[in-house]
């Protein structure tokens, strides 16, 4: 693990050259997995994350079914090679807690009443971890839910705010996360409703107010990227569908049954 740097911010620039309110680079691919009903691959800084959604599907065992709504399930999992020191496969206390708060970040926006007795299962796999895996996972999951066609009030968008050298910064990188003074992951709807809020570290009340505002600007930026990715995906698919139809029309009819 790297040593604690002497200064995190020099001349208004962070260790990786970003300004305090700048996000790391984000790359989004929607629908990358074939078996899942919806999926999303997301790179955010050094994070590499896959999210998949299955459902609504019948929930087993039956006694866990709800008669008036669908049950949202969320499993956050780290690949054993995703961090510096290999981790044992399987759930840890940390991943169980993250799974819980992530699930609760989606429950306010998913229309669960439409699908009684079913589950909507969200799976997030952290393939490479580099600070902020829970927010990255939630952003990917948000798009995977959209890709699966699960009816939602809207996307949710996630971003963390932290404090280093006494200053609030958006979207912590690894060194800032390890040695910073505070870490506050936030998940918001486009309308600014908070669906996840955690904070570790040390903030004055005044700093907290500002941190929440900064988180809002971060979530807004993320939301815009998510929206663009969806538009790109759906316009591509739209084109692809037209092409497919064209090809199908062109093929001799008899072949289809073989």
């Amino acid at each position, binding site marked *: *693990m790297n040593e604690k740097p002497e200064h995190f911010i020099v001349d208004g620039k962070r260790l990786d050259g970003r300004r305090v309110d700048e996000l790391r680079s984000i790359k989004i691919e929607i629908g990358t997995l074939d078996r899942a009903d919806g999926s999303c691959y997301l790179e955010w800084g050094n994070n590499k994350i896959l999210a998949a959604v299955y459902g609504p599907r019948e929930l087993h065992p039956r006694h866990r079914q709800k008669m*008036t709504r669908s049950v949202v399930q969320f499993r956050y999992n780290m690949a054993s090679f995703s961090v510096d*020191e290999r981790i044992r496969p399987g759930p840890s*206390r*940390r991943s*169980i*807690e993250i*799974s*819980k*708060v992530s699930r*609760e970040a989606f*429950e*306010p*926006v998913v229309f669960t009443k439409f699908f009684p007795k079913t589950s909507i299962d969200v799976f997030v796999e952290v393939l490479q971890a580099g600070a902020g895996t829970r927010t990255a996972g939630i952003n990917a999951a948000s798009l995977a839910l959209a890709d699966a066609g699960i009816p939602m009030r809207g996307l949710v968008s996630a971003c963390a705010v932290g404090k280093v050298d006494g200053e609030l910064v958006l979207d912590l990188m690894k060194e800032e996360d390890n040695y910073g003074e505070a870490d*506050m992951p936030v998940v918001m*709807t486009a309308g*600014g*409703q*908070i*669906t*996840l*809020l*955690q*904070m*570790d*570290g*040390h*903030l*004055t*009340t005044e700093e*907290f*107010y500002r941190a*929440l505002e900064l988180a*809002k600007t971060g979530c807004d930026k993320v939301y815009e990227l998510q929206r663009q990715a969806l538009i790109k995906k759906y316009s591509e698919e739209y084109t692809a569908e037209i092409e497919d139809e064209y090809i199908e029309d062109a093929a001799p009819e008899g072949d289809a049954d073989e």
Partner: protein
Amino acid sequence: MLMSEDVMTEIQRDHLFNLILKGEREDGRAFDEFREISIETGTIDTADGSARVRLGKTDLLVGVKIQPGEPFPDTPDKGVIITNAELVPLASPEYEAGPPREGAIEIARVVDRGIRESKSLDLEKLCITAGEKVWIVFIDVHVLNNDGNIIDAASMGSIAALLTATIPRAQYSMGDDIPLPVRDIPVAVTVIEFGGALLIDPSLAESTIASTSLIIITNSDGSISGMQKSGAESLKVEQVLQAVDMAKTAAAEIREKFLDV
């Protein structure tokens, strides 16, 4: 059973909602008022520090054990805090035997972060031989009766137990016992949102009805060292800001009345 649990809940929800519209709570408290609090320390002789907390009818015991052990590889010169919460089936008909579930894990992790992030314990002072041996501080929360708001009770109990804990150096032939050095007194306050109103210290009935809460851990100087939204509903920014103010005020009062050392 003539009425299903859902129907019962619906009726209770309406009842509580109507009360809140009138600015009232079932047990007559103000929205920003804790139930009766009692903290008794030194309850358990076999522990190195202990506290029994009663918050209304909620009842739990926190035991602190301090034993030598190995440091984590990435912090070779620091002591270790391990926090665990046991929701034993004696404490509630809803609890079941078995390994801790997400509820118990969340309680333990939030309490742990409150202690850890407030830097309440000076972990460097808990080093015995760097890289080899440090003091491991086990904080075990044992719930005895769940009448709601376990988190706040566990948080009070943990810091009370730590404040009165002793490092058992004599037992390991390392000199005289000394008090565990505690630098700050973080206090968790849980605020629930229900029908637009914010209430602190939810009773079991209140937290069943309003599943969403915001836990806010504040320090002696009023700063915040931990926060956790829990539950399936969303919160507005204004609600969060108001909740922080309510928590800060309540925490200061608890600190002064019950944790003054």
